[in-house]
């Protein structure tokens, strides 16, 4: 199919407009964080950096950020272990129910967040709470880990499929113990897949709000929960603007990291 020059130009214009549609709202968030006017009239008349220093001193936002990082790291750590285990089991063994298992791993992310959220909430209240472990940061980590497993699983599985078992067999033939083979052969092969999957898992957890709403104990406020709680309070708007701007800027970091570590294919899918 040879496209006429007109069709090519039309497509190019469409692409440009599409990119504008995607980026204008994000740019607006950045500009608004410097808006000097307290009522955020549009267009902004004067610019200031004082909201940025005010946000830096805001203890609520800072402790929420810390909570989010803790939850993200905890969930990612658990997901790394569980996801890698399932990927090895599915790739290296044949067993009854293998196809069902790979479907089951996708389920926590395919179902609406509110379903996963209330399911985990009622299970926690009826099974775990009687054991004396109330909802808190730990229950958030458990909830997040449940839907983070899939990102690690997908990345490690794809890597294992590509690399095969020849190198591991060679290592065993040359007299390495299974532990040595894992440390010197298997782990280096899957390291970048673990990093790409872990990055994705952390980002998913860091951004999650619905499951968090239902699994967080009293007083546990992650950054998305903090933003949501302050979204409808006009006097907090300047701080929310800055936090939002920071998150927009930070979204470049994982893409950049993934490009450097694992090539352009990494991060191509968020599931």
């Amino acid at each position, binding site marked *: 199919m040879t496209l006429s020059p007109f069709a090519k130009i039309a497509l190019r214009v469409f692409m440009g407009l599409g990119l504008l549609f995607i980026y204008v709202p994000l740019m*607006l968030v950045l500009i608004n964080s410097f808006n000097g006017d307290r009522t955020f009239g549009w267009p902004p008349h004067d610019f200031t950096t004082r909201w940025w220093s005010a946000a830096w001193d805001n203890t609520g936002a800072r402790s929420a950020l810390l909570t989010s990082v803790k939850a993200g790291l905890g969930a990612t750590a658990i997901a790394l272990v569980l996801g890698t285990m399932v990927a090895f089991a599915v790739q290296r063994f044949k067993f009854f129910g293998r196809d069902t298992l790979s479907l089951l791993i996708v389920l926590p992310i395919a179902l609406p967040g509110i379903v996963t959220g209330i399911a985990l909430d009622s*299970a926690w209240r009826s099974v775990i709470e009687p054991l004396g472990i109330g909802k808190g940061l730990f229950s958030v980590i458990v909830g997040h880990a*449940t839907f983070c497993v899939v990102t690690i699983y997908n990345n490690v599985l794809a890597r294992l499929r590509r690399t095969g078992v020849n190198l591991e067999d060679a290592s065993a033939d040359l007299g390495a113990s299974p532990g040595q083979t894992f440390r010197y052969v298997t782990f280096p092969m899957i390291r970048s897949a673990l990093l790409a999957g872990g990055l994705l898992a952390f980002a998913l957890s860091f951004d999650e709000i619905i499951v968090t709403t239902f699994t967080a104990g009293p007083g546990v406020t992650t950054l998305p929960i903090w933003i949501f709680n302050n979204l409808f309070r006009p006097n907090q708007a300047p701080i929310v603007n800055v936090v939002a701007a920071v998150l927009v800027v930070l979204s470049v970091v994982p893409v950049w990291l993934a490009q450097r570590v694992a090539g352009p294919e990494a991060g191509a899918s968020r599931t």
Partner: protein
Amino acid sequence: MSTLGSFLHRHPRLRLAGLLSAPLLWLVVAYLGALAVLLVSAFWSVNSFTGVLTKQFTVANFRTILTEEVYRNVTLRSLWVALSVTIICVVLAVPMAFYMAKVASPRTRKWLVIAILTPLWASYLVKAYAWRILLANDGPMDSIFGGPGYGLFAVVLVLSYMWLPYMILPIYAGLERLPDSMLEASADLGARAGRTFRRIVLPVLIPSVFAGSIFTFSLSLGDYITVQIVGGKSQLIGNLVYANIGAANNLPFAAAIATVPVVIMVIYLVAVRRSGALEEL
């Protein structure tokens, strides 16, 4: 340690059991168990005077959902929103993905993929918040276009904005796999652009579009946060579930409503599976 390692090496079934025990305990016992309990509790009820949970089988919740007009309307409205969002995303994504895969130079293509990927990492709430500012009274949209303000239209617009990259990426991946030589061959054999599109491009496009639609459809169907932020007074299924857990404290009824999007999603997945969409995910 090494003796344990070699012992496991000689017994692959034990190794498999070791690998699967923890994940299965987590995903099957904890997660599926929780879902099962939720499904069962949809058949329980709450005493409207005392607020105590009555664990006795009843289909009253489902009867209410099926017979009362409010719930039927909200379900239809949610379906309409999910469908509109999906259609808008397809209309925007197909030309963009086509440009990326078939018109842009390889160098530009790489940057365009990055440009589409990056917003996926920006926070969901931040995007919704950006649109809350854009759509506010006397905000940018209001002063330029004189509308549309908060409401159901804003919900469709913002959800389309959020899930657009999820539609572009599978379509792009599908088109990129289609060799240019096939398009050229079709033209050499005398087919016009329209016919080449129908006979060569479309068969590749359809499974990718369905794959993308799984995201746009299911993510829209369960959403209640965006609705709260830009929806004004409108309500979707998610809001009803949320209201019944929080204010009404009626978990059985919330669970019963929550089965509606799950059932719709399962029907949708089964329907699109025939197109080969699940392999494109």
